[in-house]
């Protein structure tokens, strides 16, 4: 059937308001969301460090020592500490989302399991690098 047009009369106009680019400042929940998204910024810094390390490794011991010195600077440590904290925040949000996207087991169980994995990886790294 051809739809009959219902002409909306022209006078009254609904009021549209545009979302401002700063909508995420309006509410704590949105701010946390933006923070979650922003965890990738310190992550990028850390990834840069890793690549720098890789690069110096491919060059010479000289370079490597340069890299070590770079990593020992206060601001670099501070940023990497931030990256670490961000990774934990990211992990928390990510682990909590996962069971909702793939409800394979009770959520609490899945969340605990994932934290265990993170802890496990850290421990292995620690044993490999720290205790060796």
């Amino acid at each position: 059937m051809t739809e009959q047009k219902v002409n909306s009369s022209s006078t009254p106009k609904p009021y549209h308001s545009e979302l401002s680019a700063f909508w995420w400042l309006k509410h704590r929940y949105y701010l946390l969301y933006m923070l979650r998204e922003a965890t990738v910024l310190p992550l990028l810094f850390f990834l840069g460090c890793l690549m720098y390390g890789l690069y110096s490794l491919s060059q010479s011991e000289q370079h490597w020592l340069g890299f070590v010195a770079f990593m020992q600077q206060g601001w670099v440590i501070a940023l990497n500490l931030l990256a670490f904290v961000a990774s934990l925040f990211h992990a928390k949000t990510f682990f909590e989302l996962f069971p909702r996207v793939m409800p394979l087991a009770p959520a609490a169980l899945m969340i605990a399991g994932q934290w265990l994995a993170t802890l496990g990886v850290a421990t292995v790294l620690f044993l490999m690098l720290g205790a060796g």
Partner: protein
Amino acid sequence: MKPVNTQPKRSDEPIWWALFSAGGVCFAVFLPGLMLLLGVLWPLGFLELSPLNYASLQQLAAFGYGIPALALVGACICLPLFHAAHRIHHGMHDLKLNTGLAGKLLCYGLAALLSATALALLWCVLKQPLV
């Protein structure tokens, strides 16, 4: 109500989302430990990281750790790069920076480029003659 007729175009997002998700897992599972150790404890000298001197790293590379090293770079650098690219791409949309296709190309392109670089560097490390 208007009848809906247009069949929307299939989005290529599944590719990026898959990379993003994989990267997110790595970011959450591998990176916290790595960041803590390499980024904080080691530079502060809290740990005696014996394998982390130039010689032993070279050693490791030489003795057939090629595949694990590849996996490590993939999990700790490449996938997280795509994870970050994805979030930045969407973050720009969230901030109403309408960068369109260019922004998308830039984000994922850069992630791809950097990933390739990381892999190339690894290749150089592995190919390096022992000193």
